[in-house]
């Protein structure tokens, strides 16, 4: 079976790479503060309370700190969203990028549910990660289906 991989517009390559770097930055900070809570600089009164979120029971998933899962996610995404990876001809590499973005967004929705419905507080840095993940999903849903020939092509450039 032959699968085609179309090229994507330059803006998508640049945007996803920059978003991945920003997401990685947030994730590194959240991982550091997970192990060194005193390093966390954030309001701790009212709705915004990073410490309460990052020390909650929901800060672990299957026994693994969510911060580390986020770090791993963005390390992989940074590689997949690098200009070199975008130029790759391997069909499944682009599918993996898209799938990871969708799974990441699903996980973010669970974390938002935990913040709003269970913990009752919002973590600013976590919200930063959520926004980056959402933005990545928007870009990837815009270009990947066309890139992989799933939908009719559209003028992207």
């Amino acid at each position, binding site marked *: 079976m032959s699968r085609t991989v179309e090229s994507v517009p330059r803006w998508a390559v640049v945007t996803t790479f920059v978003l991945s770097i920003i997401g990685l930055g947030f994730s590194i900070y959240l991982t550091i503060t997970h192990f060194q809570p005193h390093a966390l600089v954030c309001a701790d009164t009212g709705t915004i309370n990073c410490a309460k979120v990052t020390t909650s029971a929901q800060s672990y998933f299957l026994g693994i700190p969510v911060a580390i899962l986020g770090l791993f996610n963005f390390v992989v995404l940074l590689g997949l969203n690098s200009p070199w990876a975008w130029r790759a001809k391997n069909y499944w590499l682009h599918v993996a990028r898209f799938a990871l973005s969708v799974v990441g967004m699903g996980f973010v929705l669970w974390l938002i549910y935990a913040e709003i419905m269970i913990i009752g507080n919002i973590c600013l840095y976590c919200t930063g990660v959520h926004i980056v993940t959402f933005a990545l999903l928007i870009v990837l849903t815009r270009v990947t289906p066309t890139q992989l020939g799933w939908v009719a092509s559209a*003028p992207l450039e």
Partner: protein
Amino acid sequence: MANATASKKAQTPAKGGRPAGLFTWIAVGVVLVIVVGLVVIKMTSGSPAAKASTTFEAVDATTMSQLTSVPTSVFNTVGVTSPVAPISGPSPLSGQPALTKTVNGKALPLIQYVGAEYCPYCAAERWSTIIALSRFGTFSNLGFAQSGASDVYPSTKTFTFRQATYTSPYVAFSAAETFTSIPDPATNFYFPLQKLTAAQTALVKKYDTMQYIPTFTSTQENGSIPFIDMANKFLSAGASFTPATLAGLTQGQIASALSDPTNPVTQAIIASANEQSAAICVLTNNKPASVCSSAGVKAAKKALNIK
């Protein structure tokens, strides 16, 4: 793996006839509907704290038994080993007047606890304190409790000493839970519960300070809870292991695992209980021998440099 070919044009023949932006609109729509839905549900429902009750709920017999009858083999197997959650034991105090309480005409070494129900560090510490003291005497009227839902390590499951009594031929125990875990909108803190006596206040003011607590790094930590004064021979301020260890677990889950020395939560609680037991043994002149000569307490004595 499929053979892939790249073309240089973004405009390719249509497949499936779906517009290119369809996936984006679906993704944005789903995410927005879920997030907005969560916010609306949250705003139209009451907060858990507002619904919380201050009613005292006594610990059931099963949990009480699991809590106060930890097998000796578990104490001895765990010793002071807690690789997942490191333990900090009580610090020795010397040259201070004896702290005692007269019980049935006999002056017993007094162990004074000061904490609060909202406090997550107290929540963690009570587990090991109750277990340690239960080796020297008997608790009754312990109640279920959890730390503040809006504090760090929220809703850590624990017990309360608010109505508890303790009898022992070796030591006396006194506890003060100064606040509930129910937020008080009027003060933006928690509803007060038990006031400290003048004697308790004096102990806190003198010993719960940087001068006597070696782990304090600034005077801002003075007055930290939980504070435990063991007859002016040992002091403890703060939790001996992180409350994160107990995150997401119910009292029943924690208590039922206390017979498993390989469980990381059990190891943290029991290692701390062994260290507190070792300190209490100093107060009781190593009585009872069945506790103070046990392998677990011996390991704790070694860790605390107690001879």
